[in-house]
């Protein structure tokens, strides 16, 4: 049986090429590895090697021929003692099939009319989302700082599950650069509370590998600014693994640490990475505001089978809030929280911006404007249903974000309002974001760059006046 030699695809994009030169002639004996021809692709001139042994039967495409389609039979090789046979008609190259299939995919892609399905079909319909569990009547509240709430959440989960461990710079003997891991070394020992060298890329990768190997790591970045050295593992290793493996290999890991502007630490230590991570399918992104949510969502993050980026805020660590005194306070991921009900305007925020939004709402109330304040809490998946339901009621939307305006969570929510809430809008959506500059050091410039309550008040008045 003669072997047909077909025009090879020698690059991912090659559909045809030039048969530049034959290096064998009919009747030549060839063996595996011999170069048969030179073929020019869209990228380079490649050598075409024999795979099989035999005698060159017929050369069917002459050298110098341009535009030879991939898959065209260009020659035949016969085995020992076989007659050179005429080639069977060339089968349709598989490449021809591919575009039609690609077209089918795009035809079935979500249409703009149902944008909720665009990147979030992995979750159930928004209406089926879990709500916060009811706090039993008579539950005592304890005053905890965000720092303590996070520590307690980690400690409770570590008590419950031996697979959970904490790793990062200064998390153990130093008790945490921001004291979030205070006391954990004493309780859990050096096996489970591990000081690393200053080596973010390495320990983020080590953590992701440990998660693939069956553990549940909590990886602390001293701040998320340093996680840029490790972002490859957060995205390429952690976020994509479940999908790339067809659901076979998981990476249940929590990457946590302070995010956003601190105070007077300059541009390299003051950045909100929430929009970066929230743009990545395969990640869960959480950015809580108060201590109760910090605790309940940290516990949920540790229990999740998915990789979680948990964005804290240094300026919030020391703030005290009431936290329900329950043995197991766990909150649902992917569910926003209405912090203050109102009827005139919806103010949506997350993390430190929620405090500013609440402050602005108080001022607005004094002026007769009743604002509803929503804390997103989870940034991926976004609880658009809660935002849209509020918009339906207030018909005005302002987004408050301690971060840059361009390609922000604010831009995303404005688009959600356009796609799914347009008929409910009485005025254009406005956003209150930081100035679009690296954060300066000088006190007055820093203050000028960051959002504050007066700017939120001004934006709300602007949308009210437009409506």
């Amino acid at each position, binding site marked *: 049986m003669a072997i047909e030699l077909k025009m090879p695809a020698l690059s991912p994009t090659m559909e045809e090429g030039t048969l530049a030169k034959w290096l064998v002639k009919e009747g030549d004996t060839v063996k595996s590895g011999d170069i048969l021809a030179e073929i020019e*692709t869209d990228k380079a001139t490649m050598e075409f090697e024999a795979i099989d042994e035999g005698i060159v039967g017929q050369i069917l495409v002459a050298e110098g021929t341009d535009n030879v389609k991939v898959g065209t039979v260009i020659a035949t090789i016969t085995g020992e003692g076989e007659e050179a046979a005429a080639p069977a008609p060339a089968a349709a190259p598989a490449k021809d099939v591919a575009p039609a299939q690609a077209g089918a995919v795009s035809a079935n892609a979500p249409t703009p009319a149902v944008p909720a399905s665009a990147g979030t079909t992995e979750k159930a319909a928004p209406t089926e989302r879990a709500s916060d569990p009811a706090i039993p009547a008579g539950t005592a509240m304890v005053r905890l700082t965000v720092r303590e709430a996070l520590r307690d959440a980690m400690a409770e989960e570590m008590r419950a599950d031996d697979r959970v461990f904490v790793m990062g710079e200064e998390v153990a003997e130093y008790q945490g650069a921001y004291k979030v891991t205070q006391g954990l070394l004493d309780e859990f020992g050096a096996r489970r509370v591990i000081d690393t*060298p200053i080596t973010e890329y390495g320990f983020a990768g080590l*953590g*992701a590998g*440990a998660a693939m*190997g069956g553990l549940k790591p909590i990886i602390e970045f001293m701040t998320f600014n340093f996680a840029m050295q490790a972002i490859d593992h957060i995205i390429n290793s952690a976020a994509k693994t479940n999908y790339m493996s067809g*659901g076979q290999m998981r990476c249940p890991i929590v990457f946590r640490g302070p995010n956003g502007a601190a105070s007077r630490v300059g541009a390299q230590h003051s950045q909100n990475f929430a929009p970066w991570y929230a743009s990545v399918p395969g990640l869960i992104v959480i950015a809580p505001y108060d201590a109760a949510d910090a605790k309940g969502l940290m516990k949920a993050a540790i229990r999740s089978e998915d990789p979680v980026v948990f964005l804290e805020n240094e300026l919030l660590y020391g703030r005290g809030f009431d936290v329900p005194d329950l043995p197991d306070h766990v909150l649902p991921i992917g569910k926003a929280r209405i912090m203050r009900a109102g009827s005139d305007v919806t103010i949506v925020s997350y993390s430190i911006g929620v405090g500013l939004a609440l402050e602005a709402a108080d001022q607005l109330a004094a002026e007769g404007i009743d604002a509803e304040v929503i804390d997103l809490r989870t940034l991926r998946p976004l609880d658009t249903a809660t935002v849209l339901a509020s918009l339906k009621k207030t018909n005005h939307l302002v987004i408050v974000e301690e971060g840059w305006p361009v390609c922000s969570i604010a831009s995303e929510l404005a688009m959600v309002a356009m796609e799914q809430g347009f008929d409910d809008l009485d005025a254009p959506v406005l956003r209150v974001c930081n100035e679009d500059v690296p954060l300066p050091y000088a006190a007055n410039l820093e203050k000028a760059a960051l959002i504050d309550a007066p700017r939120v008040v001004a934006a709300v008045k602007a949308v009210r006046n437009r409506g």
Partner: protein
Amino acid sequence: MAKAPARSTAAPKKTASTPAPATNREGPRDPIPYDATPAELEKFYREMLLIRRFEEKAGQLYGLGLIGGFCHLYIGQEAVAVGLQSALDGDKDSVITGYRDHGHMLAYGIDPKVIMAELTGRAAGISRGKGGSMHMFSVEHKFYGGHGIVGAQVSLGTGLAFAHKYRDDGGVAMSYFGDGASNQGQVYESFNMAELWKLPIIFVIENNQYAMGTSVNRSSAEDQLYRRGESFRIPGMQVDGMDVLAVRGAAEAALEWVRAGKGPVLMELKTYRYRGHSMSDPAKYRSREEVQAVRDKSDALEHLKRVMEGAGIGEDKIKDIDKEIRAIVAESADFAESAPEPELHDLYTDVLVEQY
């Protein structure tokens, strides 16, 4: 103790040597070539031949447009994966590698059909058609990929070793990477933590002498890559990666060290890839003669055949194996060509594990 091999050898040396260490620190014992039974020789041959024939077939299917994207073939390097992985305990040890991963999967006994079907992007593929050549995994076989970012598997593998130690399960992680990856920063971050915490890991540099088109000598200030762990106190071994018995023997010495809780070992396997870096590489950075010289003088399969003949395994037996392997590969190609593509709704599955 053998001397360090000469620098810039195009063809790997035919010596199973660990050059003299730069320090007199304790290290793994000197390896000796593995004394294989005839049955083991046949097994090695069968596995190595399967890799070669599988990869040749993959190359053909790529040429026909049935395999797309990047496709990195393992032809020439077969003795490395087979020699090393034959020494592992499949029930507890774990393996991780980079994008040139077909050979390591075949050496671990993963069904060639589901590997080939992944290459052709079919639903029956090991990653259900969503990974492709570079992203394949088998948690069942403790094979953790299949990673497309050069060097990432070294940190991830260190994490697998961390998990073995954390659970105290007696397992060892084996993390393969290339001479190119050995210049990545995270490799050294991982070396530091692995030795600091005495993690059970064997770092395997498959030195096939070219990082895409850049030779070791053009990219590496210290081109004796087995020495790259010295400043972290990780003992290094340099091994002839074209001799499966030398590889297996060295693996046993390395495993003794690691299983004794003495921390990681760095193995440099001197090997060679016959094909381009990927299917679209014209390989103009090396001469035809260089490649042919390795094929003629150092081919791992030819070497093993000679050993088999010496052990009294007849040509008939070898021909039988050849036939058997051709049939397995043909079957995997037929399967991969005829299996259906993924359903369109699979586009949206497995983005996350849970529903939120």
